[in-house]
């Protein structure tokens, strides 16, 4: 096979791993709380700034900055739920989405005011690795492995813990679960914190590959939403698979054509999927 195509395919899989984490986080929040966080990519942006600030400005070791980033973002997820989402739980879905859209502007604006619009780079690069005929960026490979570990940890949490079981149950039927003694308010809080934490993990993986600037969220936010919808909103496994599908489309599109057009192809593919299978590609 053409080594360049092979490289594109490999990069697609790696890219899919990067998309997967925010997709899982969004799906978790949507599945449980039934609200789309339109500002999810901006939460990731805040996390990227947190890592950059702690590592570059404060001189913390990178690992410590990563570990600190997760609780910060989990707290931010909680705050978002308490201040914005909870008061709107009974409002029409559109009002909820627009309010989180407002938070998108708040976070972008705050980042611009605090850090200016300069591009900030972490300046970490791992040596490329040779796999057979192709070279792979070591950073991307490490991020991919970390993303898979994060996804596996989330799966184990949902599958094997009591709280995780309650979260899955609420996602399936939010009327009956309160009758079974599960307090939905508490579950919403936990899901929001975990959703925020996943944004934090995604931030750690992205900050080593992308420069941070206040509008960086716009570069991967829209495609994240589309992947979620393609996999079926709230469907974790569907979203996970769709992330890799979209990663492959983007990277092979870049191989055949160019990066910009590959995103156009990916978005058109998304619209087509919605028309053909509105409930998501992997809906049962």
């Amino acid at each position: 096979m053409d080594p360049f195509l092979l490289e594109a395919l490999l990069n697609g899989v790696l890219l899919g791993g990067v998309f997967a984490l925010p997709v899982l986080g969004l799906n978790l929040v949507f599945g449980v709380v039934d609200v789309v966080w339109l500002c999810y990519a901006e939460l990731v942006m805040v996390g990227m700034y947190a890592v950059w600030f702690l590592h570059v400005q404060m001189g913390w070791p990178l690992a410590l900055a990563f570990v600190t980033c997760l609780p910060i973002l989990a707290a931010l997820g909680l705050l978002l739920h308490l201040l914005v989402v909870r008061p709107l739980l009974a409002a029409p879905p559109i009002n909820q989405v627009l309010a989180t859209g407002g938070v998108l502007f708040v976070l972008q604006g705050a980042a611009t005011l605090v850090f200016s619009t300069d591009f900030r780079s972490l300046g970490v690069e791992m040596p490329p690795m040779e796999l057979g005929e192709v070279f792979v960026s070591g950073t991307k490979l490490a991020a991919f492995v970390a993303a898979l570990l994060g996804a596996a940890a989330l799966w184990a949490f949902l599958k094997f813990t009591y709280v995780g079981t309650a979260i899955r149950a609420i996602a399936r039927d939010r009327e009956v679960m309160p009758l079974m003694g599960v307090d939905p308010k508490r579950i919403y809080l936990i899901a929001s914190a975990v959703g925020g934490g996943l944004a934090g993990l995604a931030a750690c993986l992205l900050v080593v590959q992308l420069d941070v600037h206040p509008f960086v969220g716009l570069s991967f936010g829209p495609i994240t939403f589309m992947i979620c919808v393609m996999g079926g909103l709230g469907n974790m496994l569907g979203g996970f698979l769709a992330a890799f599908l979209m990663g492959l489309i983007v990277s092979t599109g870049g191989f055949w054509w160019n990066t910009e057009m590959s995103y156009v192809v990916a978005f058109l593919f998304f619209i087509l999927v919605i028309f053909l299978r509105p409930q998501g590609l992997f809906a049962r």
Partner: protein
Amino acid sequence: MSGLLPLAAAVAALAAVPLLSPPDYVMHLLITALLTALAGTGWAMMGRFGLVSFGHGAFLGVSAYTMALLWNFFGLSPWIGVPIGVVAAAGAGALLGYPCFRLRVVGHYFALVTLAAGEIVRILVTALREYTGGSLGMTPNQAPPDAAFAAMQFSKAGFWWVALAAWAVGLLAWRLLDRSMSSKALVAIAEDEDAASSIGIQVTREKLKVTLISAALAGLAGALTAQYRMYLNPESLAGLGISLQIVFGAIAGGMYSPIGPTIGALITIGLEESLRIGFGTEFTGAAAFSYGILLVLFMLFLPRGIAGLLERRQRPAARARSAAAGAVPAAQPPG
């Protein structure tokens, strides 16, 4: 047609504004406000029936770039180019709307499909940089002074009248829609699509109709904005950013009242200018920050916008009645 009288009177009064010879800066703000109001009015035509679009930037962009490319490459005057751009925007609306409505893409899914469409237009404009100038933007060619009018390049006063006429067209369209059976049908559809279709409402057709009107008005706003500024770039005419700004204006002003988006445009422009003066170079961040805070506050405390507030002030009796009936004041049509 008694309701038309206030509109005609308002337009006549506003048409006299340039005669007061206000400073250029004020004129500029007023023209920008009118065109922003037009885009918001277009958005709210759909938004108030629960058809929330996050991609209206796409219609601004399609129309503006159609017009500007026709002028720069074929020398076609914007007097013809703007209508063609509006038709192109409506066509884009049909292209997007028909399959969506036919295949019952609603709610979150519809919002996200429109978001994708807005991004597609933004990326296409950027990618076709040989013609559109990409993200650096493009400038319509300057016409020679004697042909300026034919090329729709005139003074601030002239543009004020054009923008005023376009704005009035938007309000007129709103009124005509409200007086037609379509608005009743759309309210029913927003309430319950299946029930509406079971009583013989043609859901797809009604939704498509309002989408075409909405896209056309947004397209008109986009083309005129580009022509007025004599500058186009993908960020300000397509994509998620501008689409959300349109939504913000319409929501803040109030999307259930015809005058709401206009109030919203005045708020947006006023806010933007005072922040520009207050914050100087840090203006962009401060503007986004305040938009965001306001949008959240509006959603939390005033989902019907400023116009909704006025509505309630005006009709305390109606409020008392609804309160007596146990209804929530300012109840939202579900959407």
